[in-house]
């Protein structure tokens, strides 16, 4: 226990300084969410590259939580879905149900090129399409995989902070 405290004290703060506020029009519900957005991550068929980057974005260095975003464990607790990967046959229905389970008002963020346009998996036999073919998408974050900075930038558009 003492070792842990010592380690915390020695390490200090590793978060990078906050970049400037992203420009561009935020989705209309941002005002309703009032700077606090609970996110539920759904892997619709990703190669897990985006997952690594999301984990990094919410890690101590990029620290997306300081902008008011938080990853939660159930769509019932969430304001927005963070969907990664092309939508596979097996995940299409669960994704639809997850979207239904989120209370209104709800947002969907498609993270990564696969989620936007199936990326390198386009036309594969198990893929039925991009995220927008299954549920309405409000925000897209490009990259294969997107850098943590890009994810943080996208999340900040939702929280407005």
């Amino acid at each position, binding site marked *: 226990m003492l070792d842990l405290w010592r380690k915390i004290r020695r390490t200090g703060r590793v978060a990078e300084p906050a970049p400037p506020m992203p420009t561009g029009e935020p989705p209309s519900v941002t005002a309703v969410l009032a700077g606090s957005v609970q996110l539920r991550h759904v892997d619709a068929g990703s190669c897990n590259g985006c997952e690594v980057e999301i984990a990094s974005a919410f890690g101590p260095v990029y620290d997306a939580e300081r902008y008011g975003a938080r990853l939660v464990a*159930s*769509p*019932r607790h969430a304001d927005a879905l963070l969907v990664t990967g092309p939508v596979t046959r097996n995940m299409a*229905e*669960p*994704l639809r*149900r*997850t979207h*239904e*389970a989120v*209370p*209104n008002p709800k947002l969907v963020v498609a993270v990564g090129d696969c989620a936007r346009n199936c990326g390198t998996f386009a036309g594969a036999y198990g893929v039925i399409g991009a995220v927008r073919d299954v549920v309405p998408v409000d925000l897209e974050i490009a990259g294969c995989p997107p850098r943590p900075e890009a994810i943080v930038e996208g999340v900040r558009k939702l929280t407005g902070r």
Partner: protein
Amino acid sequence: MSVAAVALGAAGVLAVLSSLAAIVLSAPLRPAAVGMGTALTGLAGAVSGVDAVLGGSMSVALPGVLPLAGVSLALDPLGGLFIAVTGGVALAAGIYGISYSRSHGANGRGVQAVFPLFVLAMLLVPAASSVGTFLVCWELMALTSLLLVVAEHRRGPEVARAGRWYVVMTHLGFVAVLIGLLVFAARAGDDSFRAMREVGRHLSPGLAGLVFVVTSVGFASKAGILPLHAWLPRAHPEAPSHVSALMSAAMVNLGVYGIVRVGLDLLGSGAGAGAGWWWSLVLGLGAVSAVYGILQAAMDTDLKRLLGQSTTENMGLVLVGVGAAGLFATSGNRVLAGLALAAALLHVVNHAAFKTLLFLAAGSVLRATGTRDLDALGGLRSGMPWTTGAFGLGALAASALPPGTAFVSEWLLLQALIHGLPTAGGSGGTTAAIAMPLAVAAVALTAGLAVATFVKAFGIGFLAKPRSAGAEHARESPPGMLAGMGVAGVACVVLAVLPTVVLSGVEAAAGAAVGGAEAVSGALTVRLVGVTGELSPLMLTLALLAALVMVVGAVRVVAARRTARTARLWDCGGGPMSARMEYTATSFAEPLQRVFDDVLRPEQDVDVTHHEESRYLVRAVEYRRKVPDRIERRLYEPVLAAVATWGRAGRRLATGSVHRYLGYGFYTVCSLLILLAVTR
């Protein structure tokens, strides 16, 4: 002739008549005749017991009925209480049995004829007033119950095995009771309880201690107290359910009756004679049984076995009260002795009510689904609403939470134990000072584990989705069985809300044993006399109901203001949810099993089968887990193995040769003659 005597006589006549009816009548008429007869026997017994508790005494001597000693019966408040409890249980079980035995294969001529006799034997045990009568009734009770335990022997070998365990243990217990009482009666010079009571308090401490310990061993084996409990979780579940109810709610009580009658009454501990260590022993065994019994029940997945284990627990709690009463009485504290014994006897009454209800409900489940395995039940709420309600009520009554039935008696018991501490300064003070806090802890732990056990039994067994086809297609039991459950259910509710109805009777019974003054008073509120403390179960229940209504109302009001959205139940997007995703009884008990790992010593076995091509590919994984009864492993198995070894050694003496056997006889006679010639 008092009411008690007439009613007891009527019970005897009714029982014999219904037994004869069972033999004479044809199979379709038999259940109704026997069931009604037994219910009326029970009713008459209950009337007789209640009248005896309220002061109606009786003393009958029938010298010609049995050879040598004859039969002598007498009623006093202590015996009356147990007669009333037995009668009440028989009333519910008799009504229930009409429909149950018609549909459940327990309608044989022999079984039906024995059933009323079993009730009669149990009614007569507390009424016996001489050693001869007592032992005859005791043995009649043991034999009739044995026949009922093996009633469904066609179902499988486990019924016969349970019967063997039961017959051996109950007869070893009988031998212990026989030896103790005969030694006592020989010293008294007469086998009537009155003569023994005169002599009891003047016995030498060694002899009195011997009589107490030997009889208590016998009685404890009947009550399912550790370490003589092994028969109970075997025999009670295998019997037909209304017989289980009678055994578990009425017969085990008579073990307690025996200890109270011999220890407190005949040996005079209630009047201050006897030694404190007797009662420390009773208290200790009671506390250990309570904790161990409920722990085994919490692990068990067989519904009726679980209820049997819980009987060990409740009898343990009763013996904690009896032991405390004995400790207080021998150190001269009459008020607390009366309170502790009243708590114990009230728990006997309460336990009889809720255990009857639970066993009858379990029988209803068994009849509808064909299984007792909790892991194959569930979802009975829609198919069997009344049975579910009955079991839920019983489960609430069995857990020591308000407004449960057991709560009142366990509260009284805790009050007696807690107030025993400051007054422990008298003789035997150190023992009491150590024993009381430990007993309080044991009672509290038992109460907690009992809640977990009954949440498991009710939640897994009745709620959620059905886990097997049998549970899915379960249909409600016929009205006769529901009526039997209804009788027990009403008793549970009355005992929970208005325990004062029976408290005066319980106190009279306790007063007969320890000679104390009134320990509890009040019409609606239970007020302790002599020590501070009061409880109003009625107000408590009303307050809880009011709080419940308010919470539900507040939720409704808040919900009405918000716009509702119908959405699919969140099942992680997979769905549909199946019964295999549910908690099972085993997984529910798993955290408790981990906590009590050192006590329970569960046995686990994982077998991994690999593919032939590669050790990295797994074909099948087999997992087995068993929580064996550790006392059985450590105590019974070595003894049984030793007996088997002696048996094999003895086989060498008996080779089958007639000449050899004649030789044995000849040499035995010769050596006896030589012995007599030398010693004379």
